[in-house]
């Protein structure tokens, strides 16, 4: 083995803490980067990627079987501009019941298809398998049947013989072409007597990027089959818009988490490697003194960093890919996409980047050390530069603290470069925690704002859902008596603090086409989770808060008066606030009394109740339901106490990334303190010889990181807040969403103080191991150790 190889081998094998720290730090950083990179990729135009991968249909057309034939439909493949077709597929609609519990499910459109694959609309099975014969059904992942539908028997009770199908699979169609797929032979069995079966055709056009182009394509197809045969069409642009509207809200946060993982990994690994090499200055001096050239020094130290890093990178790629499986599955669920796994190039970029990062930092640090005058390099660690840290030592000596602690407190000032590296590690760790906590907090608030789910208990008065995409807010007509009974029950229930009801209807907006959706409140709903982007919530009749899109469409501003038209009567309202609403439709929020004259019988769609502090939600709901039993309505706990699956996922992801990066930051500190303690062992020996007890030694070593930890905690917390303030609104803006201050201003002084204290915590935890080592070292050994 060459001299350089021997030095590398001994450096890797004997400097175990350093080797392990570099390996582990790299592994965790690569894991975080693979996860983060995958999330960023998964969050990049998810619909477009899924559409391309699954060869989505530009146009899904439904034809009336009584007006056309399969042969005529097949002929549409030759229409100019059509590049590919699939079909005709037989279709039928029906309303199944879950046979096991005899529960009516949403109506569904069934399509008879022999295979899930095809040139258009390749269906991706997320559960189970494809149909292999009659009596089987594959349901769409969007169909509301529950999380574990496999094996469920769907009975079509309205049909003769009540045919039943067993769910054998769950599939995803990127353009939502059906609610379920069955064997073509089953379509006939599911067609009611006298009813005509329909056909479905899927088209791809040469030009389909605009609605106008799709209109032309549709017209060309219709020209062949006849207008009367076309029962309806669905454009891929409509599906895309709906899909992106759903995902847009979460996309910035997933991208932020992903980017956080990658950026922090780069910073932390760079710091750990630079620290590890930087503290080897004396060893480098010795190597130079016995004849190592600067180039040999650089090669030796780059290799010394690369060997453990390579192991860490390999482990990190494996761990990252394994962890990405559930994370991407959840992201797929969120985005309604199907991702095969971590893209190969994400792995390649992360591996290349990690190697590059380690090489670059090791090269830069060893080059710097290699360029030091040999005599100076050898003296490092043995003879601190005179004068350095003396003022701090004098100052700390005056503190009313035990002497070992004051000695430790002055230590960072004697070695400012090393303290700066440690500071960087603590800053990264604290900034990561602060940022991640902020993002998670914002996300929770977004969820509450999205669902306006601040109420503890909710009573819905809606009828049962109808259709795969049920029309929202269709209230069951409430009589005046029913309304009175509900409000009386709420008022009489012990624990009720306040409540409001909300009714919805459509109103016209003077000067604009189309209508706006009106939310009319009875009672104070200011606490209901309606976050304001600007302005304020309504306080009296005649005032309105509106969604951003309303202001844009009507070219109005807060303070303006807009006229809503209802049943031919003009109702002027003054806009007092802009409400954050993820769908950002034409929405108007006002007091029900505003429309007292035109809509005296607005029907409440839901009642929202806030409980007094300390009231038990479950007990309250049980008691209220007892009171409501005669009316047939049911109270349910609100969503304020719980989180959606998506939020749980994102919070878990944030916690995972944070833990990993904090662990890396802690290891960075550990590495620094180990190297510092090893270098100071002679000095420790002197202290111990003078009577310093092991406990005092621990106190001194731990105290030596406290100042750095405090400073790092303060800087890191501020940096984390600054990052949050810049990144979250910017990413929301990028996704077309204006986030209100209630969602971006998530930090409270007490919470920030706690986050800032994370800095010294990271530093102290990182220092405990070497402190124990220093305390256990025998004085005689310490005194004669080089």
């Amino acid at each position: 083995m060459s001299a350089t190889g021997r030095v590398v081998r001994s450096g890797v094998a004997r400097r175990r803490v350093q080797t392990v720290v570099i390996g582990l730090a790299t592994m965790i950083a690569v894991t975080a980067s693979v996860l983060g990179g995958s999330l960023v990729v998964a969050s990049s135009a998810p619909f477009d990627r899924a559409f391309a991968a699954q060869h989505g249909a530009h146009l899904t057309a439904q034809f009336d079987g009584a007006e056309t034939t399969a042969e005529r439909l097949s002929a549409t493949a030759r229409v100019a501009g059509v590049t590919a077709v699939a079909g005709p597929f037989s279709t039928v609609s029906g309303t199944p019941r879950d046979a096991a519990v005899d529960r009516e499910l949403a109506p569904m459109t069934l399509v008879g298809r022999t295979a899930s694959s095809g040139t258009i609309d390749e269906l991706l099975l997320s559960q189970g398998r494809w149909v292999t014969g009659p009596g089987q059904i594959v349901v769409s992942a969007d169909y509301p049947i529950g999380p574990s539908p496999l094996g469920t028997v769907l009975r079509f009770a309205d049909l003769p013989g009540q045919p039943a199908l067993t769910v054998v699979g769950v599939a995803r169609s990127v353009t939502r072409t059906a609610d379920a797929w069955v064997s073509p032979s089953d379509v006939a069995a599911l067609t009611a007597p006298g009813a005509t079966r329909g056909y479905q055709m899927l088209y791809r056009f040469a030009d389909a990027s605009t609605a106008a182009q799709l209109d032309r394509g549709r017209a060309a197809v219709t020209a062949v089959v006849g207008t009367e045969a076309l029962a309806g069409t669905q454009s891929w642009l409509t599906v895309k818009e709906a899909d992106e509207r759903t995902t847009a809200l979460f996309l910035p946060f997933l991208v932020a988490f992903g980017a956080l993982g990658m950026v922090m990994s780069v910073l932390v690994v760079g710091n750990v490697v630079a620290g590890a090499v930087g503290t080897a200055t004396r060893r480098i001096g010795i190597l130079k003194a016995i004849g190592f050239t600067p180039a040999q020094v650089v090669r030796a130290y780059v290799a010394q960093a690369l060997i453990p890093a390579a192991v860490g990178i390999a482990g990190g790629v494996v761990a990252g890919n394994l962890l990405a499986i559930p994370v991407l599955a959840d992201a797929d669920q969120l985005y309604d996409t199907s991702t095969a796994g971590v893209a190969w190039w994400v792995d390649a970029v992360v591996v290349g980047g990690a190697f590059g990062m380690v090489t670059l930092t090791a090269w830069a640090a060893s080059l710097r050390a290699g360029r030091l005058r040999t005599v100076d390099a050898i003296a490092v660690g043995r003879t601190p530069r005179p004068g350095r840290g003396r003022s701090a030592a004098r100052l700390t000596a005056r503190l009313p603290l035990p002497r070992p602690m004051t000695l430790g407190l002055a230590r960072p000032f004697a070695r400012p470069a090393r303290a700066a590296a440690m500071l960087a590690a603590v800053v990264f760790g604290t900034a990561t925690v602060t940022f991640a906590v902020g993002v998670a907090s914002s996300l929770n608030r977004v969820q509450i704002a999205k669902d306006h789910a601040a109420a503890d208990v909710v009573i819905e008065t809606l009828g049962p859902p109808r259709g795969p995409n049920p029309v929202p807010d269709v209230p069951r007509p409430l009589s005046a008596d029913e309304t009175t009974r509900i409000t009386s029950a709420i008022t009489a229930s012990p624990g009720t603090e306040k409540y409001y009801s909300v009714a919805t209807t459509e109103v016209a907006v003077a000067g604009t086409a189309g209508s706006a959706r009106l939310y009319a409140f009875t009672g104070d709903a200011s606490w209901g989770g309606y976050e304001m982007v600007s302005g304020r919530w309504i306080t009296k009749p005649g005032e309105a808060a509106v969604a951003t899109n309303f202001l844009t469409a009507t070219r109005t501003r807060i303070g303006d008066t807009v006229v809503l038209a209802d049943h031919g009567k003009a109702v002027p309202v003054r806009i007092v606030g802009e409400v954050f609403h993820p769908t950002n439709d034409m929405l108007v929020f006002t007091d029900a009394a505003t429309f007292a004259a035109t809509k005296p019988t607005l029907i409440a769609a839901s009642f929202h109740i806030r409980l007094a502090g300390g009231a038990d939600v479950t007990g309250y709901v049980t008691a209220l339901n007892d009171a409501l039993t005669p009316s047939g309505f049911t109270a349910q706990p609100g969503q304020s106490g719980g989180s959606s699956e998506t939020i749980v996922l994102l919070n878990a992801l944030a916690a995972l990334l944070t833990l990993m990066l904090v662990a890396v930051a802690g290891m960075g500190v550990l590495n620094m303190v180990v190297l510092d303690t090893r270098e100071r062992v002679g000095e420790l020996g002197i202290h111990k010889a003078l009577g310093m007890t092991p406990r005092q030694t621990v106190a001194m070593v731990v105290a030596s990181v406290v100042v750095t930890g405090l400073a790092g905690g303060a800087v890191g917390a501020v940096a984390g807040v600054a990052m949050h303030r810049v990144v979250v609104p910017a990413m929301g803006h990028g996704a077309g969403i204006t986030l209100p201050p209630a969602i971006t201003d998530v930090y409270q002084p007490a919470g920030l103080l706690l986050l800032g204290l994370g800095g010294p915590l990271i530093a102290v935890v990182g220092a405990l191991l070497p402190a124990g080592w220093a305390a256990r070292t025998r004085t005689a050994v310490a005194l004669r150790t080089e």
Partner: protein
Amino acid sequence: MTTPVIELRNVTRRYDDGPPALHDTTLSIAPGEAVAILGPSGSGKSTLLNLIAGLDRPSSGTVTVDGVRVDRLNEAGSARYRRDTIGMVFQFFNLLDDLTVVDNVVLPARLSGTASGAAHRRAHQLLDALGVARHAAAYPGRLSGGERQRVAVARALINKPTLLLADEPTGALDTASGDDVKRLLNELHADGQTIVLVTHDLTLAESCATRTIRLVDGRVVADVTRDVAAGRTR
């Protein structure tokens, strides 16, 4: 007249704005000489040694060792010079504590391109000759100060250097270990090894050196050669 192995001409070394650590020094050392550089702390002894070793560069003047202008060498050149021409022994040994004793000794030889087998054979011979062969596989941390200094001497001699430089070689040792090192240096000198040692220790200088150069405030104030055979100084 013998060509000097070391020749310094008008060498000055100045650090920052302070007075020169070495001031306009001119001296030469012949092959086979054993020279002790004496002087109080801060007199410029270590600076002189570092300049000869190529660890440092003069602010002005020339340093020539074995025909090589050391002051003109770049970093890589001075590294090759150190590994091929000189052997160095430090007060605090400067052994690599993550290499075994034999690996420490072998390292300069391997850097010079000596085959592993030959380097190890030579290392074991040296360790044996210096009485530390039994520690060959141990790490330096387990050795006493005297043993470590013997290992450092073995490492310094592995490439059969023209010049052996020693910076306070007994400074960190107890009396017995110090005496061992003195004996060792005498033996090396007797074998014709040119030695330059920096020391505070007059007895070490008297027992090992044929010539003593005294420095005060960076200037040579005395340069005495002892005629060992005649027992005279001049």
